[in-house]
C-alpha cells in the first residue's frame, strides 16, 4: 500500500506512477498525505485503484477519472472530478465551484456543501451532495442525476437538457426551462439506489422533489427569447 507524501514528493511523480499502473499490480490502495491544496492530484486515472487523500485538495482533483475510487478526506477546490467517466470520487468536506463539471459517468459524493455550478454541463455523471449546492447548479446539464439533500441556490438547472435533479430542501429559483416534475416510482427507486451508494441513511426518496427540462428551449424559437 504505497504512501506518497506530497510535501516531499512532486505531484508529477504521483500522477506518473498512477498512470503507469498495470493490471498485474498489487498496489491497488494508495494514500496521499500533505496535499496542502495542490491542484490536479490524481487526474487522468484509468485503473480500478483506491486513492485516499488525507487533506484538502485544489482544482481538478480526480479530473477525468476512469475506474478509480478517490476519497478526499477534506475539502476540494474547483472542478473536482471534472469530466469523470467512471469510478467514484468522494469528498468528505465541502467542494468548490463546478464540482463534477461535464462528467460523463461514475459517482461523485460530497458530504458537505458544493458551491456554484455543481454539475454544470454534466453528461451522465451522478452526483450526491449531502449539503447544499450554489447557484446555477446543473447549468446546461445533459444527462445524469444530481441529488441534493440540502438546498439549491438560484437558477437551478438553467437551460437543462435530460439530466434529472432531486432536491430535498428548498430551491431558491429554477433556471430557464427547468421545471418541477412528478416523482414517480421509477425515480424513487433510482434515488434510493444513489442514496445507498452514497452512504446516506435515514432519508427517504419521498422527501425529494424532482426537477428536469420543460423541453421548450430544445428548438430555438422566437417566441421563447424572453426565457434568456
Amino acid at each position, binding site marked *: 500500500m504505497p504512501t506518497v507524501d506530497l510535501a516531499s514528493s512532486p505531484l508529477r511523480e504521483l500522477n506518473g506512477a498512477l498512470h503507469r499502473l498495470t493490471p498485474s499490480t498489487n498496489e491497488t490502495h494508495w494514500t496521499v498525505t500533505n496535499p496542502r491544496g495542490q*491542484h*490536479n492530484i490524481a487526474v487522468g486515472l484509468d485503473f480500478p485503484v483506491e486513492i485516499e487523500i488525507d487533506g484538502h485538495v485544489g482544482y481538478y482533483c480526480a479530473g477525468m477519472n476512469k475506474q478509480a475510487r478517490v476519497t478526499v478526506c477534506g475539502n476540494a477546490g474547483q472542478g473536482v472530478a471534472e469530466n469523470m467517466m467512471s469510478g467514484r470520487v468522494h469528498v468528505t468536506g465541502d467542494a468548490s465551484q463546478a464540482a463534477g463539471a461535464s462528467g460523463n459517468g461514475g459517482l461523485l459524493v460530497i458530504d458537505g456543501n458544493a458551491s456554484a455550478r455543481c454539475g*454544470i454541463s454534466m453528461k451522465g455523471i451522478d452526483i450526491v451532495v449531502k449539503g447544499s449546492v450554489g447557484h446555477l447548479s446543473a447549468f446546461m446539464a445533459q444527462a445524469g442525476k444530481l441529488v441534493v439533500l440540502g438546498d439549491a441556490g438560484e437558477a437551478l438547472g438553467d437551460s437543462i*437538457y*435530460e439530466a434529472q435533479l432531486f432536491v430535498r430542501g428548498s430551491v431558491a429559483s429554477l433556471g430557464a426551462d427547468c421545471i418541477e416534475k412528478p416523482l414517480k416510482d421509477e425515480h424513487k427507486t433510482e434515488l434510493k439506489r444513489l442514496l445507498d451508494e452514497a452512504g446516506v441513511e435515514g432519508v427517504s426518496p419521498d422527501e425529494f422533489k424532482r426537477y428536469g427540462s420543460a423541453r421548450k428551449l430544445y428548438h430555438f424559437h422566437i417566441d421563447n427569447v424572453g426565457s434568456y
Partner: protein
Amino acid sequence: MSAQDRWIHTPPRKSATFDDAAIAEIRRAAATGIYDIRGAGAKRKLPHFDDLLFLGASISRYPLEGYREKCATDVVIGARFAKKPIHLKIPITIAGMSFGALSGPAKEALGRGASAVGTSTTTGDGGMTPEERGHSDLLVYQVLPSRYGMNPDDLRKADAIEVVVGQGAKPGGGGMLLGQKITERVAGMRRLPVGIDQRSACRHPDWTGPDDLEIKIQELREITDWQIPIYVKVGASRPYYDIALAVKSGADAIVLDGMQGGTAATQDVFIENVGLPTMCAIPPAVKALQDLGMHRKVQLIVSGGIRNGADVAKCLALGADAVAIGTAALIALGDNDPALEAEYQKLGTTAGAYDDWHEGRDPAGITTQDPLLAARLDPVIAGRKLANYLSVMTLEAQTIARACGKSHVHNLEPEDLVALTMESAAMARVPLAGTNWIPGSNI
C-alpha cells in the same frame, strides 16, 4: 424623348448606406422576426492581405534561385513544454471543424489531405471520430467549452491539445448546431437527444480567467504526462493581452483566429460586426510574444481568410509561425463547386455564396449529416484535392520567400512588406508603399 423629358427625373440611384444587402436583410428580418444564422466568416470588405505587397530582392537584397535553391518550410510546434512537439513539413495546418458540422467523409478527407503533405488537422466541437484519428497522422484534439465528446482516452490519442477560448467568427460567442444535423451518431457523441438544437457554451464550465486556465493546462499536461503540446485558441479581439495571458497560462502554442475565419453556424450580425480582421491582429500578437521574450518559442498559428501562398507568406512575414485554414480547405474539398450550381439554385443561392451550412443540405456532401448527401463526397478524391491545394500554397509561399532571399519561409519579416493603403500600413505596421511611413509609428 427630348432632353428635357429625359432629365425631368434624376436617374435611379441606390443608397450606399441602404445597399441591396442591407435592404434585403431588413425585409428578411421583417418577414421572419428572427436574425439570420449562417456559416462561413465575415463577407464584408475588410483590410486584408491583398493590401500588402512583398518588395522582393534587388541590388540591396539578393534572391535565392527559384527551382534550385532550398527554401525550407518545416515548423516545430510545442517545444516549450511538450516532450513530443509537433513537426510539420509545411506551415499550413487544418483548423478545427467538428464532426457534426462536417460530414464523416469530409473529416476523413481533411485527414487524408493534411497527412499527405505532412501537416496536422484538428477535431472540433463534438469529439474525435475513429475515421478522423485513423486518417490523420497528426491530429490536434480540441477542448471546448461545451466539452461535447470530451474524454481522456481521446485526449491521450491526440498529438496535441487545443484549448479553445474563442473563434474569430464569434469572439465571445458560443454556437448553435441546429437539430437537422443532430443525427443519432452526432447526438450520441454529445450525449444529447437526437434532433434538438444543440447549444455550444461560450464559457468553459470549470475555469474562468488566466489563473484558472493555467491550472487547467497543467491538468491536461498531467493527464497526458507532459508528452504533447497544448495550444490555446483565441478569437482576434484584444490580441496583445490575450496572447500575453495565454503565454502566462503556459500555452505551447497559440492559435489566433481573425474575423474572416469561418463558423458552422452563427448569427450574421455577430460574424460581420465582432472581432478584428486577421491582418491587423497579427502585429499586436507578435509584439506580445516579443515583449515576453517568447516569439518563436511559443508558436503563433494564424487563421481567418487565408487563401493562397501569398497570404501564408504575409502571415509569416508579420511574425506568425504557421497558419491554419478552414473555409479554404472546404472549398478545396469541393464546397461551393460551380458544377453543383443547379442544386445551389434550388437552395436559393449560387455557387460561391452558399453559406447555410447549418441547415445540413450541402449538395457537396461536406457540411451535412444527411447520409445520402455525405456519400457524394469521395474522401480519397477530396483528400487528394486538399493535398494538391496545400502543396500549391506551400510552393507559392516558397516562391515569394526565395524572391525575398529567404532560405526558410520563417525568415520572411515585416521589412519585406509594404502596404497599399494607409489603413493597412497602420494595421500591419509596415510602411505605406513607396514611403518609409508607418502611420502611428512616430506618435
